[in-house]
């Protein structure tokens, strides 16, 4: 050594060089245990971390060059040693939990989403600042990710979405934006499955997911921070979605600019039109108070219904037709909020208001249309409820 350096500084330098050497050697011979061990040391040593990052860049470049020139000779003797010695190289890393092996496109957005998520995690864990967050990092700023476009709810994008099933009964609250105030809450039974966007958002230590819930007579779309949705989310979506009866209309996606092609069926209004009682004289809009729980059945008392809680005062459209017997009276109901579209039959006795009050219909109120992340969303009830003639209905227990 010719350069005069303090002894302890030189010792530390040599130690780092040794670690870097161990890392390189371990990487070249496939000793991943040592690789992980050195990385663990680097996590607490910024200089070593930088040295390893520089080394990694070299190996990454070699891999890229190898991919470009494949099946050219390997770039170093080690790789040829692998085949020469008859050792079967690892072909690919399987992911046993996934039922189907997908070609994951991992767009730049998804990568940025994951990295942003991690920045958010580490920011939350290190409010005091960290040298590793990069230049200009603001420890109070959390990564927010929006889906790149309002999705077509009728044709889920297998690359962006996955299917998740609840392990336990859960009440999921849906908001119109990540971190927003929930405006709808839905009670879902254990085993209920629905679609979730793969990309999630970290806000103040909570993971927000964008979910699509579909049930007979009901469709919901919005953001939730329920921990039950952070878990395993599998694909493919198309094969695992619950079977839904063919819709009576064709829905089209709504772009971020809010313009959309109106649905082809005329039984439902175009997305940008308002629904008011004045357009349909046989109906009445009434505002229900916050906390109202509605069980919307596709047929009076039959089939699956999911308790839907309105988190805020919400105008609801009631038909003037009543079905049922003296014991149970059902009213045809349409609920539309920013995150919910539900239409079906509701037991009148479960309502917090009296429908029969004369002149109580609100004529200057319109139902909201779907709106998530500031963009109009076409929420279409997938199952047109059946308008039954007056019959004697015996309510059966829900499964």
């Amino acid at each position: 050594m010719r350069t005069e350096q303090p002894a302890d500084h030189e010792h530390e330098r040599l130690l780092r060089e040794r670690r870097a050497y161990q890392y390189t050697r371990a990487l070249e011979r496939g000793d991943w245990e040592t690789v992980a061990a050195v990385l663990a040391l680097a996590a607490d040593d910024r200089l070593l971390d930088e040295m390893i990052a520089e080394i990694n860049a070299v190996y990454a470049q070699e891999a890229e060059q190898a991919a470009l020139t494949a099946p050219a000779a390997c770039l170093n003797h080690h790789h040829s040693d692998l085949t020469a010695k008859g050792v079967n190289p690892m072909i690919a890393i399987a992911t046993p939990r996934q039922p189907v092996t997908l070609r994951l496109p991992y767009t730049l957005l998804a990568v940025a989403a994951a990295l942003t998520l991690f920045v958010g995690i580490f920011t939350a864990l290190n409010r005091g600042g960290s040298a590793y967050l990069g230049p200009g990092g603001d420890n109070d700023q959390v990564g927010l990710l929006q889906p790149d476009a309002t999705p077509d709810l009728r044709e889920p994008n297998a690359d962006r979405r996955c299917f998740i099933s609840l392990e336990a009964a859960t009440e999921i609250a849906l908001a119109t934006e990540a971190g927003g105030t929930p405006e709808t809450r839905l009670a879902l039974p254990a085993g209920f499955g629905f679609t979730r966007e793969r990309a999630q958002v970290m806000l103040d230590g909570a993971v927000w997911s964008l979910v699509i819930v579909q049930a007979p007579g009901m469709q919901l779309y919005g953001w939730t921070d329920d921990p039950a949705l952070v878990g395993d989310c599998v694909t493919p979506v198309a094969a695992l979605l619950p079977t839904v009866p063919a819709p009576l209309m064709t829905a089209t996606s709504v772009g971020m600019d809010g313009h959309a092609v109106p649905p082809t069926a005329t039984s439902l209004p175009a997305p940008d039109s308002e629904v008011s009682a004045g357009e349909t004289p046989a109906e009445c809009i009434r505002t229900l108070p916050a906390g109202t729980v509605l069980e919307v059945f596709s047929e009076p008392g039959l089939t699956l219904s999911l308790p839907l809680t309105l988190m805020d005062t919400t105008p609801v459209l009631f038909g003037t037709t009543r079905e049922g017997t003296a014991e149970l009276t059902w009213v045809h109901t349409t609920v539309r909020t920013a995150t919910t579209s539900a239409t079906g039959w509701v037991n009148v006795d479960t309502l917090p208001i009296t429908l029969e009050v004369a002149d109580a219909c609100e004529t200057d109120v319109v139902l909201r249309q779907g709106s998530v992340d500031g963009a109009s969303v076409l929420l279409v009830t997938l199952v047109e409820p059946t308008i039954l003639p007056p019959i004697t209905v015996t309510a059966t227990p829900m499964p």
Partner: protein
Amino acid sequence: MQRTLRGYLYRAGVDTGALDDATAELWQEVVREALRHEARFVAGQSPRAWLLGIAANLIRRQQTEISRRQQREPLARDLYPNDALSDDEVFERVAALTSIPDELDQEEAVSALLHDLPAGDQQLVRLAVLHGLDGRALARVLDISPGAARVRLHRALERLRRRHLPLVEEGKHEN
């Protein structure tokens, strides 16, 4: 990050045609594991090193599974069953040269060590040992990146280890 994972998988022997898919799958697994164990991350640590550590452990786990299925020893032992010297020993031997007080003696010891290495390797080891250049200094001299300088140096040391040091050990035993 994904670029580094790609490099890892290439080193792990993944076929170049499968690198893209394998990288995406590995990344997904890393993200999943990190979210699952985020409480283990200590404030102030390098997120990059932590995530790469997860990736390394995932690869190791996968290799162990494959080895177990094939009823073989792990790859590392397969490739180097008769190592005379470990990496630490190689590094120590080379680093020990720097502590030879007399310059002439040091030059003689280094020449004896490097005489049958390629010229490029000799230059690298001399610069690192005799002149005490670290990765950054080596990079400036050789006009390459610091990472490339270190990788070249480490590979030169490996070639040195394979060609020379085991023979040196045998010679000592014979004497």
